[in-house]
């Protein structure tokens, strides 16, 4: 599932120092659970994103372990503190070893 994976992240462009900002992330991924069968009755092998992390200037914000019970196109919403201007790095880890990455800059006034 290396093709057609598109991360989308919503982060405010500016923030006050120490303010809590809301971050929304979505990545297009079919999250094949490994429970479904194809038309011939064969089990479709599991293929999911198993981990999601968010960092700001190298400091961890949230680290999520995903199981097959997470819906198609995994969505997360959470809150982060931005002490200074910098950059968020979001990473999604695929079962097949791929890592999808997205970065967003935030400037503190």
């Amino acid at each position, binding site marked *: 599932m290396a093709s057609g994976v598109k991360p989308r992240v919503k982060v405010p462009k500016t923030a006050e120092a120490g303010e809590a900002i809301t971050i929304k992330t979505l990545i297009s991924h079919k999250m094949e659970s490994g429970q479904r069968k194809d038309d011939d009755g064969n089990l479709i092998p599991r293929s999911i994103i198993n981990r999601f992390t968010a960092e*700001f200037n190298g400091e*961890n914000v949230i680290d999520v372990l*995903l199981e097959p019970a*997470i*819906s198609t196109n995994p969505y997360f919403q959470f*809150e*982060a503190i931005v002490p200074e201007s910098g950059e968020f790095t979001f990473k999604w880890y695929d079962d097949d070893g791929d890592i999808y990455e997205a970065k967003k800059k935030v400037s503190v006034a």
Partner: protein
Amino acid sequence: MTTHTRQFNRRSILSLGGCALAMTAVVGTPALASLTDDAIAALTGGAGAVEGGISITAPEIAENGNTVPVEINAPGAVAITLFADGNPTPSVATFKFGALSASRTASTRIRLSTTQNVVAVAEMADGSFQMAKANVKVTIGGCGG
């Protein structure tokens, strides 16, 4: 033309929906709940979790079990684990909060195979565990399926 017939079919199925809803209500919690209890015991090291302190927000009735929005709020937690006690495998996700996390809240969307409880277990900063439960009635597949 095809859309027309489909709409009609859907209507007739919907009118039957009432019965299915009543049935799911009677069946209540699935018998697989013990799997979740085992998983919680493994997580807490047998100590168990007390209810209260944390909250879990999920819809009372989910029309589509494929995407059920769930929000967890656990002030003072370092990690939260989500379970769905009626799924083939109860584990759903584990959230670990880092130094720059502003609040111990997170929202996501999960899959629920049937009507069941969604359970959140939070590991607090002092090493104790708290839990919260939300019952979600899942209607898809109940009648038309």
